[in-house]
């Protein structure tokens, strides 16, 4: 359907002209018999066109969505039809050329050009200013330590969680507060969706073809939020990972859909952390037999309770690491045989070290924390700073426009 109308288009000599010169049109009229055809005298419209005027309109959303859906190019939801006009707006927010390859994505070994990333972002409903985040997120998840070949193809329901830090997350108004993991914010809803569409259409992670998740997960539609740095009593994630507070970063982590930790009663850090630990210590996660990262998204009120007792971030991470234990008998039921190196007094620690506890603060009022187990030993999260091509750290998404001398 997309190309059918192309065949019916007018004949063109080149992209910019129909081939008729104004002299030809005037000459044609001068030579004609005035008595024969009066209409022709006043007709200065191009004779090679089927029509005198062509009006270009946006493709119909329902029609294109249906066509793309039937061709397995979507996540099932309607998409915004990607057009050249929309693409050009997205290209304002990168200093790469549209055909530059950012990375190669498995399993299809698809070339993730800037243009293809932008097209999939348009489809997801992103606004152009989100482009820098998505481009860097694609780059981040193609790092070896992330193990995208495994993450894309696995039967496990692992999703890709995107965590944004720094001023750009506030500039593009990513939700880090109330409802940040739920509906209602365009950045949270569409950045994660754009990544998923990139994985489907660039990487070939089409469910049942290149993505073999037994059931998948709602988190695979979109799983993106900002850290509430102003509510965080400790260092935010990007500062912990060596960046300055004023740097903007994107972190990608292979994670399950989050699970809630409801604790309205604990008044001490230890009591509260024990609720978290006992929610996290479960047999059926990947981490129980191949320990790895766990994401802890602590609500601001919980973080305050813990901090009030004088606990530093490192203390919290160490406590969660040391106390989240699964008995060996229950832990050794996963896809890979439990290695003896993970056994400690008949138990398995589901993280390898305190560093595996990725602790961030986000959310609104209320006494909740969310945890999300990772993909186990097989994937490691990646944090990248948002930069120009030459490595200059971005202060604002508008820096791209400055770099193009707009």
């Amino acid at each position: 359907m997309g190309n059918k109308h192309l065949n019916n288009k007018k004949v063109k000599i080149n992209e910019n002209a129909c081939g008729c010169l104004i002299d030809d049109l005037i000459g044609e009229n001068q030579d004609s018999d005035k008595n024969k055809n009066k209409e022709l005298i006043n007709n200065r419209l191009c004779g090679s066109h089927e029509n005198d005027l062509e009006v270009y309109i946006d493709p119909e959303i329902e029609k294109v969505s249906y066509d793309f859906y039937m061709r397995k190019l979507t996540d099932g939801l309607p998409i915004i039809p990607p057009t050249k006009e929309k693409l050009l707006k997205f290209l304002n927010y990168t200093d790469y050329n549209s055909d530059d390859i950012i990375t190669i994505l498995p399993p299809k070994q698809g070339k993730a050009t800037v243009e293809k990333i932008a097209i999939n972002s348009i489809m997801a409903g992103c606004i152009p200013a989100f482009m820098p985040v998505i481009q860097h997120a694609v780059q981040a998840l193609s790092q070896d330590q992330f193990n995208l070949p495994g993450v894309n193809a696995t039967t496990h329901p692992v999703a890709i969680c995107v965590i944004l830090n720094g001023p750009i997350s506030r500039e593009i108004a990513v939700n880090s507060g109330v409802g940040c993991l739920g509906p209602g914010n365009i950045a949270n809803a569409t950045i994660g969706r754009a990544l998923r569409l990139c994985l489907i259409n660039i990487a070939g992670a089409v469910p049942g073809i290149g993505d073999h998740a037994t059931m998948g997960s709602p988190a695979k539609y979109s799983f993106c939020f900002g850290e509430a740095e102003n509510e965080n009593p400790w260092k935010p994630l990007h500062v912990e990972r060596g960046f300055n507070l004023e740097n903007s970063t994107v972190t990608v982590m292979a994670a399950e859909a989050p699970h809630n930790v409801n604790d309205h009663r604990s008044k001490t850090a230890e009591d509260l952390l024990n609720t978290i630990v006992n929610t996290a210590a479960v047999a059926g996660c990947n981490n129980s037999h191949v320990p790895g990262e766990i994401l802890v998204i602590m609500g601001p009120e919980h973080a305050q309770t813990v901090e009030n007792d004088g606990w530093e971030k490192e203390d919290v991470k160490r406590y969660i690491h040391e106390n989240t234990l699964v008995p060996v008998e229950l832990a050794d039921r996963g896809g890979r045989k439990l290695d003896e190196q993970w056994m400690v007094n008949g138990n398995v620690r589901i993280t390898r070290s305190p560093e595996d506890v990725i602790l961030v603060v986000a959310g609104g009022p209320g006494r909740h924390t969310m945890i999300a187990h990772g993909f186990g030993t097989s994937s490691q999260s990646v944090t990248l700073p948002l930069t120009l091509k030459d490595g200059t750290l971005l202060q604002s998404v508008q820096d791209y426009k400055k770099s193009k001398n707009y």
Partner: protein
Amino acid sequence: MKVKIVEKDILNPLAESKALKLEINPIPENINKISLFDNTKPNANEILNIIADNLNNVNFERVKKPAGAPATPKQLEKATQADLSILAIGDCGSCTTWVILDAIRLEKEKIPTISICSNKFTTFAHELARSNGMENLRIVEIEHPIAAQSREQVERKAEKILPKIKALLSLD
């Protein structure tokens, strides 16, 4: 005046694949040693044992590797200390991925390989091998499921693939 309403062109979201064409290594006539590359998935070891028990006059090097992640350089190096490597088992998405991708890494080190994948994942296995340039990678299909099966069930399924493996090795 004729006015025509034209829908704007719709752009294609699909990416081109990186073109790559690699040849697999021939299986030598005389095989002295085979590395059995076990990804420690349930029953992978049992399948490899049944194969080993049925191949005469061959020595075996046993090597373990992760299921859903690449073999370490050390594990890969150990698996290359043979005339051929047999990898098991691809019976899920990530383990099939890394059976195939590690087989390709071995082929690049000039070691011929045979990868064993369950029939639910062989279409993907072939597609993955093709997109990584090795369309002809040797993949032997075993009946799914492999995990959570009795000893007898695994034996029956493994025995069914023995003729195919022997044929690849040019053994009777």
